[in-house]
């Protein structure tokens, strides 16, 4: 049977999707174009897809000034990689026992996980706990531990996937063959749970990469531990505050902050890794979400 080449529905659907896609892609292109526009052209003529004059000055500034920006980049990458691995490992370790139906006290444990999804301590108590009890202030752990290490939502998603997608028969077969719980976890659960683990890993990775709140709250003295987002946030905030002030001393200070082009360049550099890595996880991503959601 031959389908009609273009049904009205298809045309409409494609049009909507094309517009949708453009709305997402164009800002990125504009961001990139403004980062390679000559600074004076940028200020005089505004942002443009086809700048009159190109300049790589912003990128050479980033490379030359090196120190802080490259360091921040290193922090971002390190924290994201380590944080994501830890996040996935801990989530899976938490989710697997919860997916075992005859685990004693399963509901109580579920409740504890679930409770943190609804309630949390808020900023000030969290701050007091992390700085007063765990002393993570101004250490690399400040970027790693608070907020993102383990998320109840991830645990619930993974647990649901384990209970619904891995047949009980497999566990029984493994037990009959003499496998311990750890062997089952490493040899059966983790390989079979790959789609959901990769998906949750992507979420965690994105959250770590995009985060600037941890740096803002917990890194005060040792600004060498800032990640790229902290740097960007600090720049943007400083510009906002400094240019708004009517004090002439403050306005004088405002002129020393990096120019628009450099902000654009840093913003572009900051999203680059995510844009490169994301497509390679995409196949798991769609699968993991669909399975997790429909059967959950």
């Amino acid at each position, binding site marked *: 049977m031959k389908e009609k080449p273009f049904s009205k529905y298809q045309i409409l659907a494609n049009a909507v999707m094309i517009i949708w896609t453009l709305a997402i892609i164009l800002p990125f292109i504009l961001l990139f174009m403004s980062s390679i526009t000559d600074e*004076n052209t940028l*200020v*005089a003529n505004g942002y443009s897809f086809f700048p009159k004059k190109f300049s790589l000055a912003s990128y050479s500034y980033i490379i030359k000034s090196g120190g802080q920006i490259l360091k921040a980049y290193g922090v971002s990458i390190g924290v994201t990689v380590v944080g994501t691995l830890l996040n996935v490992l801990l989530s899976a370790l938490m989710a697997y026992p919860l997916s075992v139906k005859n685990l004693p006290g399963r509901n109580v444990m579920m*409740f504890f996980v679930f*409770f943190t999804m609804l*309630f949390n*301590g808020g*900023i*000030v*108590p969290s*701050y*007091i706990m992390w*700085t*007063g009890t765990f002393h993570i*202030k101004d250490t690399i752990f400040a970027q790693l531990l608070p907020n993102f290490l383990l998320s109840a939502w991830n645990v619930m998603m993974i647990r649901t996937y384990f209970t619904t997608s891995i047949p009980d028969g497999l566990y029984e077969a493994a037990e009959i063959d003499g496998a311990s719980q750890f062997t089952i976890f490493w040899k059966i659960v983790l390989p079979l749970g790959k789609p959901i683990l990769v998906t949750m890993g992507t979420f965690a990775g994105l959250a770590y990469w995009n985060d600037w709140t941890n740096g*803002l*709250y917990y890194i*005060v*003295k040792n600004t*060498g531990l800032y990640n790229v987002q902290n740097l960007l946030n*600090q720049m943007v*905030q*400083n*510009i*906002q*505050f*400094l*240019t*708004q*002030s*009517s*004090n*002439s*001393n*403050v*306005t*004088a*200070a*405002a*002129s*020393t902050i990096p*120019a*628009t082009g450099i902000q654009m360049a840093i913003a572009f550099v900051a999203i680059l890794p995510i844009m490169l890595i994301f497509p390679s996880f995409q196949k798991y991503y769609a699968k993991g979400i669909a399975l997790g959601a429909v059967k959950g």
Partner: protein
Amino acid sequence: MKRKMLAAFLAATMVGGLLVGCGNSGDTSGSSKSSSGTTSTASASGEADASVTKTELGEYTEENPYHLVFAFVEFYEQDDAARTAVQDALNEYMIPKYHIEVEFLPLQYAEYQQTIQLMISGGDELDVMPIYYSNASSWIAMNGIVDMNQYMDTPEGQAIKDVLGEANATVGSMNGILFGFPAQKESVELGGLTMRADICDELGIAEEYGLELNQDEYTGKVYDWSVATEIFKKVKEAHPEMTPLYLQGSASPMRRLAFFDELADQFGVLDWEADHDSTTVVNEFETDTYKEAVTQLAEWFDAGYIYPDALTDTQGSAVMMKAGNTFSYMSAIKPGYLVEAKASTGTDCYAMYFGQDVEGGYSTTNVSFYDTGIATNSADPEMAFKFISALYTDPEVMNLWQNGIQDVNYKVLDDGTAYYVDGEDASNFKYHQNTGWFMGNQFNTYVWNDGSKDANYWDKLQHHNDWAQYSPAYGFMWDSSEYSTQITALQNALNTYRPALETGSVGVAGVEETLQKLNDALYAAGLQTVMDAKQEQLDKWLDENGGATETPQSNLDTIAAAKEAN
């Protein structure tokens, strides 16, 4: 049954959480109260031995100095290694003399208020800190600031009074609590236009008004804003591609056009231009003074004199001037201003004072904008107070903190000014804070020789203050802590309409209507309640103060003499 138990457990957990929360907060406030209580009777009398510094809470010697955390804001990027070296040098000086070991805590301007607030509530190590005047009431309410009145009778307190003067030393008070000292700086806000020199020369504006490069000292000569209209007209005719005046929605130009004693937050003000001696709190946005000012802006906007995207623009005057298609912007002007302007705009500029001389006003807001105070986290506030005193009285401390180490970070020139060492300049310096106007006594530091300043620059700057007319409410600090909900609502209402009004973007036709909308929104947000409370506090303060603050006779003489001369 199971469900019931679960519910009971849930409830228990939540109640438990609440209790823990209360217990904690009660605990911290209790301990900080007791620590400030024990020091309230502290006195440094009868201690002749210079090798030991004794306070109510401890004894400190050269071998066992008090460790003090000094938070400040860095407006310019500093080299980390250089900062550490300066900190070591400062301690080399501080420890033998004051028995204080200082730890620098540099913060960013954008975040310092939030960071300090978190540090106060978290009980982190923190002694001396910058206080933005509008934070004062809430930080006092959360018991975060040490009342410094208890130390004012000590020699250190007396020394601060000598430097700042009795009135300025106590301006950072609220309900009898002395929370901070203002930085020693020029507090008068006279201002006007900063204009591109090349265009002024070309159009004969410089000739007509006798403008010269680096002529920025106020001499009593002040122009009416209608003169600016003529200048804008000339510029627009000769250079239609140029924007005669750059404004920005997020930065209010109102202080240049009309002066109110804002009484900290603009919600309820004293209308100076209508009646200089009035102590009646009025709604700024209903006054004729305000309406005239925004109408003037709207006329300029309609005539095309104001940057068309002013409402939403975020680039700031420096960037726009650099781009080359902006003629002028509004700002406060002071001696030495034009050199700073050239550094930020990249072009030679002229300055002209506009408005009325009454605008050079001394109000609590102007003077105590940035204060220096002590956090209740301080292990020994008395030692912290000694350090603050040193910031105001000891040139060595101020110079080390501000300029770094002599001959490493700066050199002293023959005429007594200072500049970067050879091989360093404004673009590649390692350490140069340049923030004496923010904390401490900048008059104790070397004058920075950026091309226009000489050794008696601080005198000039101090003389700038002689133009001040004092607000009748000078010294009064409004305590808004009980009205924070209303203030937030009012701020939101104001932010909705102000940018459009104060960039002229509404056009002359829209002024009346937008003002009406703004006032409706303000009253709906509780403006009357706030104004009544403010008036009540002001009346009470006037009673205690023995009447309104008067402008010192010497200042009046300066102003009168200039009027005659012009």
